[in-house]
């Protein structure tokens, strides 16, 4: 069995009297993308800060690549890549200089920064200072920065937050490529569609606890309705009909609909991750 790239067991963390994590446990395998879904304050960023050595482990256990995480551990940090929610880039330096600087911190002197910039669509702006970059360009550069050391584990905190569809798609493609090449990815997001599209598994985090963790398909099966919605045009207007797939006459009903000249559309009534989250936690992702 492949050893997990990230292992977290009964992890607790408090900021003073405020409990941010109340005993969470999960694993992420190499090549797997785990989506962390939860509203603000759920504990997503705290988890990432602990796993990247920004916060100490107080209670519980956190391992990355089989190494216990402690604050500022170069052994762990040399093998991880982090994309922060805030755009913390050196604005006076160009995109290329930013990447080369961070590469040197990993001991990489021969980084092909231009190839990396090309990968995120910034090759044309390689020499421009970051101060002149748009928000989307900065986010793409943040993603490129997280990849300078070809990390085995990627921590991505809201990597597409507030981006235009084109930039978001570019970043999602990159995330899939990294996972495809064997990197374990821990992705936090508010965006249920992104989580659904990218994640092999998703974890629902709320008030410092994981309420559910499974593949999106399983969650939908467990919490959604197995039914399709059929829309038919009839003489007196448009009629919608819900056909439960578990019903004894489901086949007949669908067959009749398919044969009908008035058939307009057939949609599944599968639950969305957001509706499942609300059902499980009792609160919205936007909170």
């Amino acid at each position, binding site marked *: 069995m492949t050893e997990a790239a990230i292992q977290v067991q009964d992890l607790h963390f408090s900021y003073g009297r405020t409990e941010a994590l109340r005993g969470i446990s999960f694993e992420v395998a190499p090549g797997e993308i785990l989506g962390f879904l939860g509203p603000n304050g759920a504990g997503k960023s705290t988890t990432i800060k602990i796993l*990247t*050595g*920004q916060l100490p482990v107080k209670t519980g256990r956190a391992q990355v690549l089989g190494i216990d995480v402690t604050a*500022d551990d*170069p052994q762990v*940090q*040399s*093998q*991880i890549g*982090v994309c*922060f929610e*805030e755009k*913390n*880039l*050196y*604005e*006076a*330096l160009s995109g290329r*200089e930013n990447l080369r*600087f*961070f590469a*040197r*911190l*990993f*001991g*990489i002197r021969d980084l092909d920064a231009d190839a990396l910039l090309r990968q995120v669509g910034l090759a044309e702006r390689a020499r421009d*200072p970051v101060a002149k970059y748009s928000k989307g360009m900065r986010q793409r550069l943040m993603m490129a*920065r997280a990849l300078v*050391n*070809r990390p085995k584990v990627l921590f991505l905190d809201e990597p597409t937050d507030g981006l235009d569809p084109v930039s978001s798609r570019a970043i999602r493609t990159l995330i899939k490529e990294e996972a495809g090449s064997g990197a374990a990815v821990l992705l936090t997001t508010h965006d249920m569609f992104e989580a659904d599209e990218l994640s092999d598994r998703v974890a629902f985090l709320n008030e410092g606890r994981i309420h559910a963790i499974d593949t999106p398909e399983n969650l939908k099966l467990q919490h959604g309705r197995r039914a399709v919605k059929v829309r038919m045009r009839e003489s007196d207007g448009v009629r919608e009909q819900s056909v439960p797939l578990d019903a004894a006459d489901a086949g007949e009903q669908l067959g009749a609909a398919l044969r009908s000249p008035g058939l307009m559309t057939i949609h599944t009534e599968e639950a969305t991750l957001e509706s499942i989250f609300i059902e499980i936690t009792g609160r919205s992702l936007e909170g």
Partner: protein
Amino acid sequence: MSRPVSRWAIVRAIVRKDLVEYARDRLWLFLTVLVLVVVTVLFWVLPDDVNESIVLGVSGLEDPAAVLGGPAAEDGLEVVPFPSGADLEQVVAGEADAWQTDGGTLVIDGDSDQAPPEGARRVDVPIGIAFPEGFPAATAAGEETGVAVYVDGSVPEELRTAMAGLVRELAFQVAGHPLPVEVPAQGFVVLGEDRVGSQQSPREGFRPLFVFMVLMMELFAMASLISKEIQERTVTAVLVTPAGVADVLAAKGIAGALSGLAQAVVVLAAIDSLRVHPPLLLTLLLLGSVMVAGTAMLAGSMGRDFMSTLFWGMAFLVPLLVPALAALFPGTASPWVRALPSYPLIRGLVDVQSNGAGWADTLPQLGILAAWCAALFTAGWLVLRRRVQAR
């Protein structure tokens, strides 16, 4: 793929990045160049010499130069005869100007449109002695006389007392009597360098202040960069790489000290002050730069934005500047000034540049400065580390 990286390679990368950032910060770059230019220009504009002689106006004696010439010249006195006591009073009071011509001293009223004769030399007369008519005869006859000594408000008390002594001595001299006491033999023992004839000029006096001003600019610039790095959380991005807090702090200290030292050396070279004991001066400046880097770490850690960083920079700057200002004035600095961290640096610079002190003479200042450097750098390190860890 990353490979094991040495601490030094990490520190070097951060130092290089910091210096590039500093060089691209237009505000600080402009201010740095401005200070370097202003300091250099000011230095060369300031007077390089000091008039050590005292001009003494005398009225009521027929040939005052003959009477006063011998002892006066030895005491650095330039004797200027005046036609009357009233003229002398006017000139010392600044109500009239005195012009020396071949025919004697010409006094022109300040409100007058009269032009001075060609070739005349204007003389400033801060002290005047007005002898009454027939002073030699009256003194010789043992009659009671009165002598007026006029002094400008800026004349120090010691000089006024000396003038009173001179008048008494003259009275005996013009009366042809010996002094009533046997004057003891006087031996002057000059401690340190004898600066008679080579007093410290304004240009020389300002030299340590100028060097210190450049270091102080460095304090603001580094504090601002440190504060910005914390506020914009770029330091967080650095700390999730193999770089540790100690690497970041070491790099900040090195970048600050290097930058401060380079600028101080440039300004010293520009004001032609690196000729005397260059290695000793560079050692003093290096310690000064480290001290400033430590102070910048403190100010940068305390600043929450540009304005508060400026505030903290000023809060540290003002006390550090006091010894440099005190060096402008002759005399021994007060004990509280000597207790300030920048005092040994300023004292060392003055000793080396003005008095030609060497390593042995400067050792106490170097020791105290090194101790202050260690204290301020450690304080800056601890405060900045706490701030970075709490990011």
